[in-house]
């Protein structure tokens, strides 16, 4: 039976999740910031079309995971090809928009576009009235769709200040937008697996962690189950080069966004 090689991998599962959920486990200088989505006020479909792909039967997951690993055919493999690092939210409460911007980086890499470092704060700050507060990914994805995202060359990754909202920045952000994304049903790991097996990364808000991260591939775990590889926003020094594996229960999201299309801009 195929299982993802886990030796040396940073793993978060039911046995140790409590430790990670404790505030003291957040590395010095880092923060989280996932604000649980209010589903009564913002029901599924409030921000975009709900995920419409038919779910891939679980009986097919393992074979597909194995083949995608063997042929190096997941979004995660494109990170090294494009040569970008995990983001670093650096003490802000902007994990929820860092996960979305990371998803844009991956989508661009999968389009073959040169890497352009995009600024999470250029979305999070104006969306939240320039306050360092939490949120959830669907909010950020919708804002990135309507207003675009600034390159870090014009707006620092964690710059929560109106001074960066210049005419030049407003013009530049029009070139980096999310064209299409899906909202996934809460607590539905099958939708997450289907999105990942179709090469769409998924930004997931995880209530148990109070944190949002980007899921980059489905993995088969040794107990015959499945989990996901995540790209965190605590810089590349955390975990394995910024990544870790979450088991199924810890991967299963509250708010979740799969990015399907970004605008193809070269510079």
């Amino acid at each position, binding site marked *: 039976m195929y299982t993802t090689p886990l030796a040396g991998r940073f793993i978060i599962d039911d046995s140790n999740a409590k430790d990670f959920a404790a505030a003291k486990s957040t590395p010095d200088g880092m923060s989280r910031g996932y604000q649980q989505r209010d589903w009564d006020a913002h029901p599924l479909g409030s921000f975009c079309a709900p995920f419409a792909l*038919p779910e891939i039967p679980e009986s097919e997951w393992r074979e597909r995971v194995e083949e995608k690993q063997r042929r*190096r055919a997941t979004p995660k493999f494109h990170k090294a090809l494009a040569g970008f690092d995990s983001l670093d939210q650096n003490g802000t409460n902007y994990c929820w928009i860092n996960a979305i911007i990371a998803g844009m980086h991956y989508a661009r890499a999968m389009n073959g576009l040169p890497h352009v470092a995009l600024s999470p704060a250029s979305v999070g700050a104006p969306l939240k009235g320039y306050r360092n507060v939490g949120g959830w990914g669907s909010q950020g994805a919708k804002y990135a769709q309507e207003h675009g995202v600034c390159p870090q060359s014009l707006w620092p990754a964690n710059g929560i200040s109106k001074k960066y909202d210049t005419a030049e920045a407003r013009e530049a952000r029009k070139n980096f937008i999310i064209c299409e994304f899906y909202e996934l049903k809460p607590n539905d790991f099958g939708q997450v697996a289907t999105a990942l097996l179709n090469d769409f990364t998924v930004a997931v808000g995880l209530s148990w962690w109070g944190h949002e991260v980007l899921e980059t591939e489905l993995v088969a775990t040794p107990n015959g189950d499945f989990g996901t590889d995540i790209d965190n926003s605590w810089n590349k020094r955390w975990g394995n080069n910024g990544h870790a594996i979450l088991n199924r229960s810890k991967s299963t999201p509250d708010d979740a966004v799969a990015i399907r299309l970004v605008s193809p801009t070269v510079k």
Partner: protein
Amino acid sequence: MTKTSDKLALIALVWLALSMFDGGGNPFAPAPIDAPGLNVLIVEETEARHTLPFAQVVAMGSVEWKEYVKAKSGEWRQYDSEADLKNDDAKWRQAFARPRTSLPWLVVSNGKTGSEGPLPANLDALLSEIKKYGE
């Protein structure tokens, strides 16, 4: 024209016709991308990716052929058929605008010659098609 030369011409025509329908595109066509070097474009319908044979999803999503193109100092793009390429280079806009008869669609060019046609059925066939123009 002598009978021998007639026969040779006929053989050449048959060979040319067979070459055009080998499922790997037309190797005699002028370069479909008007730029030097190896350039590869895949156009797909991302919303319908789940309807493709899994081997084609793996082919498109693999970094194997992308690393090959990169090693040849080439470039590649993989775009949705509804993508707006106004901010990409002219060579990609031109290649993207070429007629297609199905999706996903592959365009390969080395600046002198190339091919275009339906995406091959799997990664090995895709790599093989790209390598024809990468040497």
